[in-house]
Structures are given as structure tokens and as C-alpha cells.
């Protein structure tokens, strides 16, 4: 799963490795074998960074596919999730299907569809759906035809007991997302029953993702991007259940903790999945592993330390009085899970790209996701804020407004001898008033190189925070790109949140060369994204202009300088407003860059947070 395609051999062997590990599971008390597996796991996970994502490459010879396929084979898991959803669509919230449109995605949907009962409702959410259509309301066409109000249930109520498919879920407006979340919570839409499973088709690239509040409510996150069509043929039998687990809930909580799944919906949904897997027998260890792989692994924000003492030390005390013990078999001292084998099995199911991110730098991923809702909110150009009398040829007809305007007069007009059911006159016509958002997103592009970096960075951080603190007056957002060493990094994605900015900015390192071209490129990329989202970007570049690292990451003043000017001209061509704050003492280079950008130029050899934010406000 995930963007960097997994070479088939490693996937296969990873598979075999964990299978080897788990084959021992049913034979309770085969401790020797288990600790052997631990030894395999230890070095693999504590070793060098990149290879860790393929744990156990070297572990053991391939064994014949006897009980086969209880594996992190992504298609098998995707298939399993589809069958679980099909068995009871509303039970698990649904799934996020991250995949480009194409045959693999179609096959998965087909799998789900065929597994469903044929009469199960299946609705596709049209983009830009309104409240009336989503939650129920007036059926306008029927109302006009009949001359009286005809209500119709919304799409969610129609899908009761079935599936709602949401295409382009990463661009779902926050309002729609929150209605879906509320319907998932309450099982109703406008007081009609609406229990459904949600399939979010996420076609996002990069850090575009489904709004987290909604994503958190869905059990499964399936990434089909790395699966080839050929791999989707195999249908793998379910692994044998094995022995009953004494404390499934405790195990799942411990696993969630180990993988840094903060939201409690993670373990709750995993417990639900485990229970469904087990149907009418007690939950087995195998069920726990499968549930954790399906639900918890894609939510992981960290990797468990390999030698971590198993969290079972915190054996659940009985503070929940009167709780029926799960399966009637709970022994509170169910001490030996999650052990390395289980951890390893789940770890192997973490999508490789996620794993790389985790290894590379901890939980930036969640941080990057957190702002989606706010960003999506800006992704509309012009939102209707009401309607006014007007000519529909010069605006968007507001049908409802028109009818409302005409409605009170119907009785009177009919008395005048009209025979039409609804008499709409020109005076009744209403058009929508749209308001363009005028929000500005200031993208700070900060030179974090060299000796003066620390000071400059501190001031830039201060300026960002000051600007954010007053952002409420103007509803503005701020982003920060830092460049140093060999490349540029988006330290703070566009945000309006001071809390988040503080966290993103703390511990920003400085020093190294000056890859000015890379910095400008990154700032332009962010700014263009902002503009696509419907907000107005502005770039503030803090640098002394003395580029000495080229885009390739190699040193060399001449080439770096030329590339920087080239990047600056690209910025100008993109029509982005910019301000260059020259932090150097001599100033020719930064001036040249500013000219190439067509930017305002400001010389502030010793910028100071207050001064800087004032200058930015004045200039942009």
C-alpha cells in the first residue's frame, strides 16, 4: 500500500515472516518459538532507517502457502474490509479508499457490491450536494408540478441500511463532512433513520486528505495505490482463528497505545471489527491481529520501541464495575499481549509510505492533516449569502428564493383569472448574492542557513505568531517555508491556528547552505495551492539573497544564483505578490532577486518580530 510501490518480493517475504511468527500463536506455550520471533523483530526494527519498512526481509525461507495469506497482503486486507462492511454496512462507519480512479478501485467497489445483499441501497453523493438533497426537504420539481409542497427523504435517509459513496472525498466541503459525521453519530438525518456505511473515495495527492473529524469515525483506511490489477485476483482464505484471547479489549488498547493512536475511536472500532470477525466464537488472537491490522495500523503515528516492555503491565483494574467481562472469559491478568509477534504483524501492515514518514520525523503527518477542514473551507470562490431581486441572466437564479417571493401572492393572482398552478412574475425572480472570500494567506519563506539563521528564524517565528494573533480581525492565514542545507521544507502548512503554529515552529533548526532556488520554488508551490483553494496568497521572502546551493543540492555560487533568479522570475510569471526582506548587510543580491520577482523590497538588516509583522502588513 502507499505511494512508493512495494517490490513484490519484499512484500511476499514480509508476509512469510509474519506468517512464520503467527503460526506459533495457536500453540500456546511455545515460548521458545515466540522469543525467537522477537529476536528477529528486534534487530530489524532498531536497525537503519529505510530498510525497517520491510521487516524481516531475511527472515526464514519461504514456506509453502499452507494456510496462506494471513498477511499484510494489501489486497487481501482490502478485500477483508469490503466483506466486513458488506456484512453490516452501518456497523463500522465505513472506509476511506485512497486510490486513483481506475480498475483497481472499481474492482474493490465491485467486490463490496457483490458481497452486499442485492437489495441494499447504494447511493453516490453528487459533489456540491445541498442540504435539501442530503438530509431531506422539498422536492422542487414535484412541488412545482403538483402545486403543493412535496417532501422527499434526503440521500442519507434513502441509503438507510446501505452504502453512501463519496467521490472526491478530499474536497468534501466541511459543512457536508460535518453533516455526514453527525449522521454517523446519531444514525438519523432530519429525524429519519439513516444508518449507513460511508465509502470515501480519496483521490488526494500529497497531503490532501479527507477531513480528519470524518475520517476518525470510519474504521477502515484502504490504500490501493500500490496494488496492481494482477494482484487483485487472489482470494485468500481466512486464517484459522486459533485460541481465544483472554482480554481482547485490553490488547487492542495496548496496541493502539503502542502505535500512537490517540483517538479512542481507533480501539473502539477495532474492538467492533474483532467482534465481527469472531461472530459466534470467542475472539481469538488472530482476530485481534487482523482487527489491529485493518483499523489501527493505518492510523499509526509512531512505531513501538522494539524493546518496550509489553504494556500489559497496566493490567486493567476493575474500575468499571458491573461490566460484563468480555466473552465471560476475562482474566484481568491476561498479561502477555501485545507481544512482539502481534506488534510485528501490525507493524508489517502499516502502509510503507506512512512507515517512512514515521521513521523520518515522527508525527508531522497528523499535523499536516489537521488543518484540512479549515483549508477546505476556503476552497470556495464566492458563497451565496442571500438573494436579491434581479435578472437571472445576469446572475445565478435562486429558485427557492423566487418561489418564496411568489408564494404569498398565488391566491391573489389566481383570483385575477390565472389558470397556471404557480404564477411567477418577473418581480418575483431572485438571484443569488455571492461573496468572494478576501482571505489572505501569507507564505513566509525564510532563509534558515548560515550563522545569522538562528536570530532570523526567531524573528520570523515571532512575526508569524504576531500576524496570527491578529488574524482574527482579518481572517488571514499564515504558512512558513524554511530553506537550508540542501533543500526547503514546509514547516507550517497554511493555518489560522496559533496553537498549531507554535507547535510547528518550535524546534525549527537552522544552519547550512543557502538553497534559495529551492526555497522560492517551495514557496511558490504553497502559494499556488493556496490560490487554488480560493484564497489570496502573498509571499514574504526573508533572505540575504546569497544563494550557494543549487536545486540539485550541490554547492556553487554561480549556478545557485542563476537558478535563484530563474525561480524568482517564475514567481513573477505566476503573478504572485511578494515582499523581499533583505536581512544581509550589503544588499545587491537580494535586490536582484526582488527585481526578478517584481517584488517589493525592504531592507531590514536586523529584523525584529514587531517591526517585521508591521512591515508585512503595510506591504501586502
Amino acid at each position: 500500500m502507499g505511494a512508493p510501490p512495494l517490490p513484490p518480493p519484499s512484500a511476499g517475504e514480509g508476509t512469510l515472516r509474519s506468517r512464520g511468527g503467527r503460526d506459533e500463536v495457536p500453540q500456546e506455550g511455545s515460548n521458545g518459538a515466540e522469543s525467537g520471533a522477537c529476536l528477529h523483530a528486534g534487530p530489524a526494527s532498531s536497525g537503519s532507517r529505510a530498510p525497517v519498512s520491510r521487516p524481516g526481509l531475511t527472515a526464514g525461507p519461504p514456506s509453502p502457502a499452507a494456510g496462506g495469506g494471513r498477511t499484510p497482503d494489501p489486497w487481501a486486507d482490502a478485500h477483508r474490509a469490503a466483506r466486513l462492511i458488506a456484512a453490516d454496512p452501518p456497523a463500522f462507519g465505513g472506509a476511506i479508499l485512497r486510490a486513483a480512479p481506475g480498475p483497481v478501485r472499481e474492482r474493490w467497489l465491485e467486490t463490496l457490491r457483490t458481497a452486499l445483499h442485492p437489495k441494499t441501497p447504494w447511493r453516490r453523493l453528487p459533489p456540491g450536494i445541498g442540504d435539501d438533497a442530503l438530509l431531506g426537504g422539498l422536492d422542487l420539481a414535484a412541488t412545482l408540478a403538483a402545486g403543493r409542497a412535496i417532501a422527499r427523504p434526503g440521500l442519507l435517509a434513502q441509503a438507510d441500511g446501505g452504502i453512501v459513496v463519496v467521490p472526491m472525498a478530499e474536497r468534501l466541503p466541511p459543512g457536508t463532512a460535518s453533516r455526514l459525521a453527525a449522521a454517523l453519530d446519531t444514525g438519523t438525518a432530519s429525524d429519519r433513520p439513516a444508518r449507513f456505511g460511508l465509502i470515501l473515495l480519496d483521490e488526494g495527492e500529497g497531503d490532501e486528505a479527507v477531513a480528519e473529524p470524518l475520517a476518525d469515525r470510519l474504521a477502515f483506511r484502504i490504500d490501493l495505490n500500490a496494488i496492481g490489477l494482477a494482484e487483485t485476483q487472489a482470494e485468500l482464505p481466512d486464517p484459522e482463528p486459533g485460541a481465544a484471547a483472554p482480554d481482547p479489549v485490553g490488547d487492542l488498547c495496548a496496541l493502539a497505545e503502542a502505535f500512537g493512536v490517540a483517538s479512542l475511536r481507533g480501539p473502539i472500532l477495532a474492538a467492533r471489527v474483532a467482534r465481527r470477525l469472531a461472530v459466534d466464537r470467542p475472539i481469538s488472537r488472530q482476530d485481534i491481529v487482523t482487527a489491529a491490522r485493518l483499523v489501527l495500523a493505518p492510523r499509526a503515528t509512531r512505531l513501538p520501541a522494539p524493546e518496550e516492555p509489553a504494556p500489559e503491565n497496566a493490567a486493567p483494574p476493575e474500575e468499571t464495575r458491573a461490566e460484563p467481562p468480555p466473552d465471560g472469559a476475562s482474566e484481568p491478568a491476561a498479561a502477555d499481549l501485545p507481544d512482539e509477534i502481534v506488534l510485528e504483524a501490525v507493524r508489517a501492515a502499516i502502509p510503507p509510505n506512512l512507515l517512512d514518514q514515521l521513521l523520518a520525523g515522527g508525527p508531522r503527518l497528523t499535523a499536516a492533516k489537521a488543518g484540512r477542514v479549515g483549508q477546505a473551507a476556503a476552497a470556495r470562490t464566492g458563497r451565496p449569502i442571500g438573494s436579491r431581486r434581479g435578472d437571472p441572466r445576469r446572475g445565478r437564479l435562486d429558485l427557492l428564493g423566487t418561489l418564496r417571493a411568489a408564494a404569498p401572492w398565488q391566491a391573489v393572482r389566481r383570483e385575477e383569472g390565472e389558470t397556471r398552478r404557480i404564477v411567477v412574475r418577473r418581480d418575483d425572480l431572485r438571484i443569488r448574492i455571492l461573496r468572494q472570500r478576501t482571505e489572505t494567506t501569507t507564505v513566509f519563506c525564510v532563509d534558515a542557513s548560515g550563522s545569522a539563521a538562528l536570530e532570523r528564524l526567531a524573528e520570523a517565528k515571532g512575526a508569524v505568531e504576531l500576524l496570527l494573533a491578529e488574524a482574527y480581525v482579518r481572517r488571514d492565514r499564515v504558512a512558513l517555508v524554511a530553506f537550508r542545507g540542501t533543500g526547503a521544507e514546509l514547516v507550517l502548512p497554511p493555518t489560522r491556528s496559533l496553537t498549531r503554529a507554535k507547535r510547528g515552529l518550535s524546534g525549527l533548526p537552522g544552519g547550512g547552505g543557502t538553497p534559495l532556488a529551492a526555497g522560492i520554488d517551495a514557496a511558490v508551490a504553497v502559494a499556488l495551492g493556496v490560490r487554488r483553494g480560493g484564497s489570496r496568497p502573498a509571499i514574504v521572502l526573508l533572505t540575504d539573497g546569497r544563494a550557494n546551493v543549487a536545486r540539485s543540492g550541490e554547492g556553487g555560487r554561480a549556478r545557485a544564483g542563476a537558478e535563484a533568479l530563474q525561480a524568482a522570475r517564475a514567481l513573477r510569471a505566476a503573478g504572485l505578490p511578494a515582499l523581499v526582506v533583505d536581512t544581509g548587510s550589503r544588499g545587491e543580491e537580494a535586490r536582484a532577486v526582488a527585481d526578478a520577482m517584481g517584488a517589493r523590497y525592504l531592507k531590514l538588516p536586523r529584523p525584529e518580530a514587531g517591526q517585521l509583522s508591521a512591515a508585512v502588513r503595510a506591504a501586502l
Partner: protein
Amino acid sequence: MPTFPFSAIIGQDEMRQALLIAAVDPAVGGVLVFGDRGTGKSTAIRALAALLPPMRAVAGCPYNCDPDSPAESCPHCAGGGPRKSHKKPVPVVDLPLGATEDRVVGTLDLERALGAGVKAFEPGLLARANRGFLYIDEVNLLEDHLVDLLLDVAVSGVNTVEREGLSLRHPARFVLVGSGNPEEGELRPQLLDRFGLACEVATPKDIPTRIAVVRARDAYERDPEGFCAARAGDERTIQKRILLARERLPSVTVPDAALERAARLCLALGTDGLRGELTLMRTARALAALDGAETVTDDHLRRIAPAALRHRLRRNPLDESGSTARVERALAEVFA
């Protein structure tokens, strides 16, 4: 499926205390719950409403007027004379993000307009929430024009409708409950200030609590009816506590010493205006009533001060310490 019972919510003491206080005295001005996802914010609010005893309302009144004292501004009940009453559950109305103004404020009743040619008002969410709870998830992402509208209604308790040729006022007094994640955007200061209490919730970090939460949820999902039946006694206890506290509330006294403490606390924190003191006093009184106490003591003030004050501090963006820490510091000084 019955609602997850309030008494089965584990941890999140501050949030539960704040919600109980709002249930005792709706005039405290609403509860804001800020924190991580999946911490039971929505669960707690829905559970609280299910726990409250049904209220008596004028039959047929779209604004749930109290038969004993119908709101003066109620277009339905203002006529006077005896009214039939019936019992109905305390409403919890969700205000979704991106709701249209029509839906919130109310609008021309199309059905009657088209059918009978009558210009009638179709009440919106604000009308339905009267005497109940208005719940806004992700309140920090609410669009500005809705925030303006809410601010106006929250202050006056009356929704004034001037649109589509309609012109009327109706009562809209409700407990505003907002929740959200501060990482996704800040709340507008004016709206922040309207909330009486602000709690911070965090995902429990210790494994036993987490296990207990998941286990409770798991047990509930497997047998909702049985789970709720087992909790029925606890639910009744809480219900009784709220009802008793409501009765006792008018007679709880606030001694001058407590008022002075409250004033000194607010001075030390530099909160703007007098709303801090007023809320602190009101909420401390409700807390005392919940405790069955006759007078407000230092202990009550101390317990409620963080929630009543932390969102009223003047912000200094360059000050790293959180507002909770600042309140704690001031508490330590004043109660030294």
C-alpha cells in the same frame, strides 16, 4: 438504540462537571469543549440531554414554551389564557457547519405558502433549541455570518426575523454547547467570551483508563438495552442531583468573602470586563447547589475557576505558558 448513558462516561471530569452546571443553571452561558478527537464530546452532550427529565411545554408551540410562564416574545403563546401542556424531551439541536441562514433562523413556510397561499413562518433550528441545547461541533470553523447571528441571539434570548416579508420575534434561550479542536482554527474572541465555561479535554493517556473506556463502549454496543438498564440507577441518581440542585439554586448564598476572592482572582488574571466575575459567581453557585451546599466556599471557586476563566485571559501570543497554567498560578496566589 438508546443513547450511551451519561453515568458510563469515564474520566473527562471537568467536561462532565461543566455540563451538569449548565443543566442546573442554563443562564451560565453555555459550555465550550476544546480538545482532541474521539474523547467523547458529542457522546457526553447527547447523553446529558437524554438524562434530563422531560420538560412541560405548551402543546403545539413550536418554541417549547413553558406553560407556566410562556415567553413574552412567543408569537404562539403571547395571546394569554390557559394552554394545554404536554411533556417532551429536552431538545438537543445540532447546528451543522455550513448550515444556511434559512435553516438556522427560520424562513417562510413554503408548504403553506404554496398550498394555502398563507404567509407563515417555518421555525428554524434556533426555535427548536429554545429551552434546550444547541450543539455546534467544530464551532471554531463556523462561518462568520452564523457566528454573528448566534452572538446576537445568545445575548438577547430572542430571535428576530426580518426576511421574505416576514417580521416576527420568538424566544430562543438555549444552552450553547460548542466543541472543536483548537489546532484547526481559533474561535472568534467575541464568541469565546460568550461561553460561560470552557473545558479542555484530552485523550486519556494511561492505559487502564483507555481500556475502561473502550470496554464500556464495547459492552454498550453489544447489548445497548442491557447496558443502559444496568446504568439506570446511576442515571436516576444524577438526574435527582440535577433536580435537587435546581431547587436549591435560588437559596444558595454567595458570601462577600467569596465575591472578594473572585474579584481578586479576575484582577490578578487581568480578564476584560466584569463577565469573568459574574460567570465565576454564577457557576460556583450552581456547583454549590450540585454539592448540596448552602453557601459558596473557596473550594467551589477553586474547582470552577479554571473552566470559568481560562478563555477570558488577554492573549499574549509570545507567552508560551497555556492559559490553564496562568489560571492555576493566579489561584495559588489568591488562595495562598
